């Protein structure tokens, strides 16, 4: 054996191990040296659920951990269904979910909650869903719900179809096959998109569901749809508005006008929507008004909830969840998420509602 030959790599490996075993530069107790006397919260809060909330939860967790240096927040963006399952089984502090708890789920037990208490849905995350397209030579596109539904259920297959041309007299639409891209995974985005088409159009012909009911191109996740639309030819798809990047987006017909998505218009339609009937008074599940004719409102939105217990079996966890979710729904929290995750902030009224319910959570 030649030790000169092995000596160098060994030394490099040794140094690397030393470097790696040291603490991360951005961690440690630096934050507590400031005026951290206010925060008494400690512990780890594990939660999980909707991947749509992933980016926002990252931003919230970061801000919350800076304010409360002894707290660690872990949010698994594992999916709404998995998040609700874990929460019901008692495996997480709260669940993020794109759909509110079903009657069936409310009838059962909640593992993390005190015995015989229920959980409530609190809207904390509103995001417009943008319809994105990639057609050479076309920058703006107007569509109504009927045409959009026909494109996605495969009735309209070419970009120069009369229905599209009628809505876009100024655009030069090419003779090109339409590749309509949907989410291949089950998702809340698909559920909200199909819900909009089912309610607002006459041509969709299916119920709202989190599985896309027709054929066509499928792609995994928001990022998958965005990259399929970007890299494809003659593509159209739907995605969380924050991920749209440079792609052109469709303006939807609301009433007599074409409305492009904006956070304000999205928040507006949520503010104008009634609560789901027949649920507990402190449950803020929303029945979104997709058929709105008010051009101030953009009806294609996704509302994601934080599902929390009314009363936690573990009081310490209750305190932690309360503090964190209160922060999420607060004006400051919404502003942070708007900046880093592109959400539409809750209206002041809804925000207050959520806060008043959270005040009773323990």
């Amino acid at each position: 054996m030649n030790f000169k030959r092995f000596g160098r790599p060994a030394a490099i490996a040794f140094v690397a191990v030393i470097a790696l075993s040291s603490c991360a530069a951005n961690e440690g107790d630096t934050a507590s040296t400031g005026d951290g006397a206010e925060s008494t919260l400690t512990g780890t809060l594990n939660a999980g659920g909707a991947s749509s909330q992933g980016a926002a939860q990252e931003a919230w967790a970061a801000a919350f951990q800076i304010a409360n240096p002894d707290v660690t927040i872990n949010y698994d963006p594992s999916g709404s269904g998995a998040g609700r399952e874990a929460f019901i089984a008692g495996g997480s502090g709260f669940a993020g979910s794109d759909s509110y708890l079903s009657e069936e789920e409310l009838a059962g037990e909640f593992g993390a909650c005190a015995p015989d208490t229920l959980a409530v849905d609190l809207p904390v995350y509103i995001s417009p869903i943008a319809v994105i397209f990639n057609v050479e030579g076309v920058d703006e596109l107007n569509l109504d719900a009927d045409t959009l539904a026909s494109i996605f259920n495969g009735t309209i297959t070419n970009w120069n179809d009369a229905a599209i041309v009628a809505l876009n007299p100024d655009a030069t639409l090419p003779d090109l096959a339409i590749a309509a891209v949907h989410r291949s995974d089950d998702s809340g985005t698909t559920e909200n998109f199909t819900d909009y088409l089912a309610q607002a159009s006459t041509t969709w012909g299916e119920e709202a569901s989190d599985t896309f009911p027709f054929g066509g191109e499928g792609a995994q996740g928001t990022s998958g749809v965005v990259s399929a639309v970007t890299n494809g030819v003659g593509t159209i798809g739907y995605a969380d508005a924050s991920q749209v990047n440079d792609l052109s987006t469709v303006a939807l017909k609301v009433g007599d006008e074409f409305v492009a998505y904006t956070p304000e218009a999205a928040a507006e339609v949520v503010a104008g929507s009634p609560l789901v009937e027949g649920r507990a008074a402190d449950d803020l599940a929303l029945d979104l008004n997709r058929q709105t004719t008010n051009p101030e409102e953009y009806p294609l939105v996704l509302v994601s909830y934080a599902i929390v217990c009314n009363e936690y079996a573990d009081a310490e966890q209750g305190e932690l969840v309360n503090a964190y979710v209160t922060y999420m729904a607060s004006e400051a929290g919404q502003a942070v998420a708007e900046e880093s995750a592109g959400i539409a902030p809750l209206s002041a009224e809804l925000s207050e509602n959520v806060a008043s319910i959270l005040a009773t959570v323990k």
Partner: protein
Amino acid sequence: MSTDTIIRPITNSLTAGKLPKRSPLWILLASWVVAGAVFLVLQVTEVADGFNVIGTIVFGTVIYLIAIYLLSRMVEGARQAKDRLMTALVASAFIISLVPLGSIIITTVTNGLPAFLTPSFFNSSMRNVVGEGGGVLHAITGTLLVTGMATLISVPIGLLSAIYLTEYGTGRLARAITFFVDVMTGIPSIVAGLFAFALFALLFNDPGIRFGFGGSIALAVLMIPVVVRSSEEMLKLVPNELREAAYALGVPKWLTIMKVVLPTSVAGIVTGVMLSIARVIGETAPLLIIAGFTASMNYDLFSERMMTLPVFVYNQYVSQGVDSQAYVDRAWAGALTLILIVMVLNLAARLIARIFSPKFGR
């Protein structure tokens, strides 16, 4: 190699009946030129659109295959012609495989380098990081610990089983193991994760269990069959003469295996182990389920969530914030880091194999 034989009537010169020494090279170049010329003609006459380099090389190579076969057949005879054809085919198989390899490496390096070169990438975790910045120290630590533990579990088990299969086993147990190890290679990674999760959730009665060791178990389930299968093949190749020689000298069986069989096949076994590590180190789905997701450091395999590199890459790709470029950059840089880690491990393993393997033969 100068093993060519001449079956035709012997002429005076030693080089008669053979193509000139450099002829394959010239024929190849000529074929490319011909293919390029054809493409140019097509372009000029506007039959097909566009001169294209890939097409030229592909068609040129096909022309070369035909040309070398025919030429060699005319000059050297059918057997030599076949030999030349197969040589060309084998070489092109190798080149073909280099194309995707090159493409993947180039894509990863060009996309990953910007974030990879930021100083914070290797000394920070993602705790309290929103948007740009942050690092993968937590994920690197997690990947090394989780995969290291998985290797510690599966290599002894796998290697001993392979030894059993080749050296001891003859009966029903051996046949059962061989067969079911094959079946084990088909366990989808996500099922391994679910299995580990169900196992530990049951053992510890904690429905929300997430810890690094669980991830190691899931990976070990995936790793063991690869280790067994590859080491079994390598052990089988050890000539029986070596074993018999050892027995004849009165060496006990276990010492024969330790001192003769294993060292003889160590290079192959190490290759197999490295393959199995490479197979599992990039697994995302099982780790997402059982090892979880966190932005903070965790050195303890047995408590709390632990981040790993593939989960990091996946998460950065899936839940992008508004500043999506920063997330995508980090995803690619994470992938680059993962590849580099496996490369270093591979190099280290080869060194070890060279130290232990006997100095004879090739």
